[in-house]
């Protein structure tokens, strides 16, 4: 079973780094700058099935207006990526999600606060994260550097979209 997943997030939040180490990829990162999208695959194996997450890594831009929402068509889930050291990127990720859902309806997502290894520069308060968790959101504090929780996040999303 395959599922289209879109990775959304502001500029330089670490989407590309997240996938670089943990996914199967055949396309170089220049696709992001040329075509604006790069496709990677993450296979998540469950006891009864294997879910292939086809990850659409959309070029993150600060200018939300230039976000190509058409790339989200047909997606089964979203990976929202936030740079934990830049509070503003949370708003960007949420806005991108809103735009995608406005266009294509609600869909499962996981919210990743990335760069958890940079604890000294962390800019998101635990309270804020808790509040979001209260909403029932699946939130992970990940580090592309250490790989912490990255697999968990994908596994979580895979189980959500494969229901």
């Amino acid at each position: 079973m395959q599922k289209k997943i879109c990775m959304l997030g502001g500029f330089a939040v670490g989407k590309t780094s997240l996938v670089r180490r943990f996914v199967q990829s055949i396309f170089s990162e220049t696709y992001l700058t040329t075509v604006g999208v790069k496709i990677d695959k993450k296979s998540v194996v469950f006891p009864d099935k294997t879910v292939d997450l086809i990850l659409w890594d959309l070029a993150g831009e600060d200018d939300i207006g230039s976000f190509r929402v058409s790339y989200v068509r047909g997606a089964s889930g979203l990976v929202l990526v936030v740079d934990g050291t830049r509070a503003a990127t949370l708003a960007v990720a949420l806005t991108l999600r809103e735009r995608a859902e406005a266009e294509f309806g609600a869909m499962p997502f996981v919210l990743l606060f990335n760069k958890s290894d940079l604890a000294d520069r962390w800019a998101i308060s635990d309270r804020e994260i808790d509040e979001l968790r209260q909403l029932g959101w699946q939130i992970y504090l990940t580090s592309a550097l250490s790989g912490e929780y990255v697999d968990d996040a994908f596994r979580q999303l895979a189980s959500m979209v494969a229901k």
Partner: protein
Amino acid sequence: MTSTVDPISLPKRAASNDTEIDREALATLLVEIARNVDPDYRARFEGVPTADPRMETLRQLLVGREISELSRVTHLLDEPEQLAAAVGGVLPSAAARAPHAQLGEALAPAVERAVQRSIQKSPRTLTDILYPVFLPAIRKSIGEKIDQTFQSLNETLRHIFTWHGLKWRFEAWRTGASFSEVVLKHSLVYRVEHVFLINRNSGLLIAHVAADNATSEDPQLISSMLSAIQDFVKDSFNEKEQSGLDTIRFGELRLWSEVGPFATLVAVIRGNPPEELHEIIRDVLLRIHDECSQALEQFDGDSSQLASVETQLQTCVELKQEDSNQGFPWLVVAAVLLVLIPAGGWFFLSWQSGQRWQAYVSRLETQPGIIVAEQKVRDGQFYIAGLRDPLAADPQALLSGTEIDPARVHSQWQFYQSLDPKFVLQRLTASLTPPKSVRLSIVENRIVAEGEAPDTWIDRARAAARQLSAGGPVFDISRVRDVSPEARAAEHWQTYVSRLEAQPGIIVAQQTARGGHFYISGLRDPQAADPQALLSGTGVDPARVHSQWQFYQSLDPKFVLKRLVASLTPPKSVRFMIIEDRIVVVGEAPAAWINRARVASQQLSADGLSLEISELRELTPQELTHLREAIQAIDIFFDSGKAIPGPEQLPVLDKLANQLKELAKEARKAGVTAQFMLTGHSDATGRETANVSISAARAETVRALLKKRGVDPELLLVRGAGTFEPAETENSRTGSSANRRVSVTVNFH
């Protein structure tokens, strides 16, 4: 249940209200029903009517509200308008909730009929509706057809003159296929390596089939990336078209995609595929959509439902056209060549001789004066017929150098006269033989004669011009100058000149005719005929003649004799004869005359001439001789250039007149006639002609003066001697007064 209440009376009591059932009445009724239902009761209660009104009462009690509701519904169903309104209210949501397949099946016939009806009524409506759907499809289809045609044309052109082309032409002939089909078959070598069926919505791979040995990266990623690129192009260039990217080409590799309603089929082709492949791919996609429409529409990443699709895709992957490397059919080619070479050679030769013949015919056609009416080639023989002017080039002669065998040429020429100016000119030249001074030329289709010609030729030319055929060139002779007057004058002049030349004592030294005037110069003896006088009757205008004559003494014996006779005035008894250049005088004469003859004889002998006077006998009486000598001693003198003697000469003239009259009288007595020759002389100054004239004039004057003084003019003869008989020799140029005189000689007859 043993109540005795009369059930029939019960229904009469009205229920407390409509909604609540009268329990008591109901109970009574139920007992009553039980009684009716039980056969025992029936037996016991005979006479109960079949339509028991109590039943109706019971019904009213039990389902009274339902009945009224039912009647409302029945009424609703019976009233079509109300029913329509009611159904119309629920139809959209009912249709939406109905199972798709069943609804589709139920509606299909009705929709078909409706569409059919609509088309029958007005095809326009449906056309308008479908227009946006059809137009892109039609456009695409036409585009592909055109591409296909171009591809076919391109390939055909590319190979038409190659070795392959020849080979394929043979194959086309052998298999009955068109040449372009064969060319495409061979030149379009391709292989479909991969086929991807991609969900149009999510870009997820539905199915992928690869050809043997064909490798690729993860098809799932590829399919997503392909649709990402489709989206990229669509977004980047704002393309509204639903079709998407249909061709991507990368070197040898081509990606052709066909877009269906739910899925896109992408074929990865290596090589040069024919355009028809588009149609094949589209057909496969259509079939897939037909078979699994629902599964495709509901595809959510699980392709297990769509396993059957792969077999369809497999048909695409099997498509290929491989370059056939069959052994070259040398034997066939050799056999064909064996037939073709002689046939080609024969064709070439007959073509070449045909070409040569055509070249010859066109050369003939360009010849002036030759009209080719008919020509043909049959069995290697050439036939030609037409008209030709006798003056035109000889068709036979034109054959030489054409490499056409003259023996195979059969000509039939009719002669005619061409009106071509060149030929007319030739004919005119031959018939008119124009003089050298006339030049004939062709000026703008006219024949123009220029120059000078006598009137006789001009008359002939004019006649020829009149006889020229109408429609032919004009013969213009207006520029020929008539030179006959001059010619005639020249002719007359020549006659005159030859007459002069025939004259003794005249030597023509030079003569020319220039500008209508004639110039002549030469020598003449004063005794010779007067050239001026000879002009009369020759037709030469004397005013145009300019003569310059030098006088000279001709040594011709005849002239010598003339001069002698003139100077000696011999008496009648004397005769002169010319015997072999000698002049012989015979007869008798007065002694004085004989003396003079002797003197003359002596003078002549100095010039190598001889005058023989030995035969003469003396005659004259003495008295006359005296008188004569007295007279002959008298000279009348003149001033220079004057023809009239001065007054001092008048007494001399008087005396001379008296002596002449006396001598005449005495001579008459003696029986002879005295004759007086008055000879005028001039000095040597001035021109000879003038001198001769003045000498004669002087003699005439003296004669007139003597006549005036009574001398019988019959006896007076006159001559001018010029300077030839001078009284004294002149040494100086001043002239001699002694020589300007008139002398008198006396002759007796």
